[in-house]
């Protein structure tokens, strides 16, 4: 079976506009969540979020590009530029034909939908810009990456709500491992912080009004974020032959479905996904030093996730570190697993485990080492990244240091 490695990483998210900036924020346990600055925020009861700050699209994209690139596509292209530059890959000839793009998103061009529904419903306009459809479609980010970098192999978008990115990266892993592709640009992007996007989440009554405090007994819900994380996954022999720097090896992936409830998480579904990833990677739980948790900060997720980890890890559950970086960048929904994979790479490459910030009170139902409030130095050789979506769709990745 072919081996798969990561040779490039890129991001723009509430913690920074690049991977180095994001690592610095994660090391420092900085919080990127703040007051939402969006139109009609005064009509929302949830007014905080992890917004990408200091970003001006005019500095990155011209008018013609902005007519086609929704905010989630802009984030994707910015992160992809960083990742592909780091990989040093150039896509031409047979490499281009054997390379593709697999991205996760949940809302796609939701800002574009929001703005244009306003125009026709609220403002009563009878005309919208001609490119609304190609701008809002969920696959537009994947298409623009493919077009901009000449990626001519398999390209598509995966939508499994909060697990979209992990499902996407799992597909990328499989495409390369099976021989169907040489390199895949993968990860995910989300930009749901608009009036309609937040209003819909508000209705579920699971959002926090003050902070995301995963695993803390006084947690009171999730906080939305936005941004993108993009990686270059590449066949190991190909990467080695060209002398590429290898950031990590992807060694396992597992997907399961709860087949139970549309919103409530299930311990059995999560347990099977975690143990499935270990089995696929042919490693025992004792090898794993760090787990990037799904850790949404809701009452239900965090206790279910901890129970699932305890079940799979047994005695070793007391030794493994598990943190939720959503406490810093918020829940990026379809892009969240991708930005969170950066915490995994930081642990493997720099020996620094990102903290769960905002941790205030121990919860007996989350009695694991959640790396509270401060990053920790630790030598870690294997990591897992969990994602458990609404709809009961779970995806767990296993990575190993190069």
């Amino acid at each position, binding site marked *: 079976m072919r081996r798969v490695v990561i040779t490039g990483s890129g991001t723009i998210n509430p913690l920074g506009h690049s991977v180095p900036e994001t690592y610095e924020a994660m090391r420092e346990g900085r919080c990127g969540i703040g007051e939402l600055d969006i139109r009609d925020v005064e009509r929302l009861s949830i007014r905080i979020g992890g917004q990408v700050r200091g970003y001006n699209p005019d500095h990155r994209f011209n008018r013609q590009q902005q007519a086609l690139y929704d905010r989630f596509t802009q984030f994707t292209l910015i992160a992809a530029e960083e990742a592909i530059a780091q990989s040093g890959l150039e896509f031409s000839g047979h490499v281009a034909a054997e390379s593709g793009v697999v991205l996760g998103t949940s809302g796609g061009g939701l800002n574009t939908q929001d703005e244009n529904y306003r125009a026709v419903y609220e403002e009563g306009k009878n005309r919208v810009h001609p490119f609304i459809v190609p701008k809002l479609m969920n696959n537009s980010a994947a298409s623009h990456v493919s077009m901009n970098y000449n990626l001519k192999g398999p390209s598509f978008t995966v939508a499994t709500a909060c697990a979209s990115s992990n499902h996407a990266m799992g597909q990328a892993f499989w495409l390369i491992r099976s021989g169907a592709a040489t390199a895949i640009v993968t990860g995910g992007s989300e930009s749901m912080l608009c009036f309609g996007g937040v209003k819909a989440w508000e209705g*579920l009554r699971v959002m926090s009004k003050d902070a995301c405090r995963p695993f803390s007994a006084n947690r009171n819900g999730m906080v939305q974020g936005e941004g993108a994380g993009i990686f270059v996954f590449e066949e190991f022999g190909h990467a080695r032959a060209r002398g590429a720097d290898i950031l990590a090896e992807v060694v396992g992936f597992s997907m399961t479905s709860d087949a139970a409830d549309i919103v409530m998480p299930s311990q059995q579904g999560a347990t099977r996904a975690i143990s499935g990833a270990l089995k696929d990677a042919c490693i025992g739980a004792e090898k794993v030093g760090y787990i990037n948790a799904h850790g949404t900060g809701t009452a239900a997720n965090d206790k279910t996730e901890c129970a699932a980890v305890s079940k799979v890890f047994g005695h070793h559950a007391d030794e493994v570190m598990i943190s939720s970086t959503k406490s810093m960048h918020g829940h990026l929904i379809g892009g969240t697993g991708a930005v969170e994979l950066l915490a995994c790479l930081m642990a493997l490459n720099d020996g620094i485990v990102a903290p769960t910030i905002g941790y205030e009170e121990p919860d007996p139902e989350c009695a694991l080492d959640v790396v509270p409030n401060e990053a920790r130095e630790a030598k870690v050789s294997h990591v897992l990244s969990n994602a458990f979506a609404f709809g009961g769709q779970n995806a767990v990745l296993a990575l190993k240091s190069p």
Partner: protein
Amino acid sequence: MSGVKERVIEIIAEQAVLEPSDVSLEQSLEDLGVDSMGLVEAIFSIEESFDIQVPFNANEPEKSDLDISSVATVVATVERLVAEQAG
């Protein structure tokens, strides 16, 4: 406050898939088989029916303004919120 009790019972009955006449004030929502999603939907219906805001976070129901320990407490909370938020 006329009508509040009847309308709240109708809303809860709808979520419990019961006739309003089968819902009694002492029963809890749990007794009636209203789960967390049913509760959130019932709150939405209450807000729409009475044009009020009902502060409720599913992560910490005990800290919410809405006392869901029985149908009677829900009715009392709604009557209070209607009075407070009138006009």
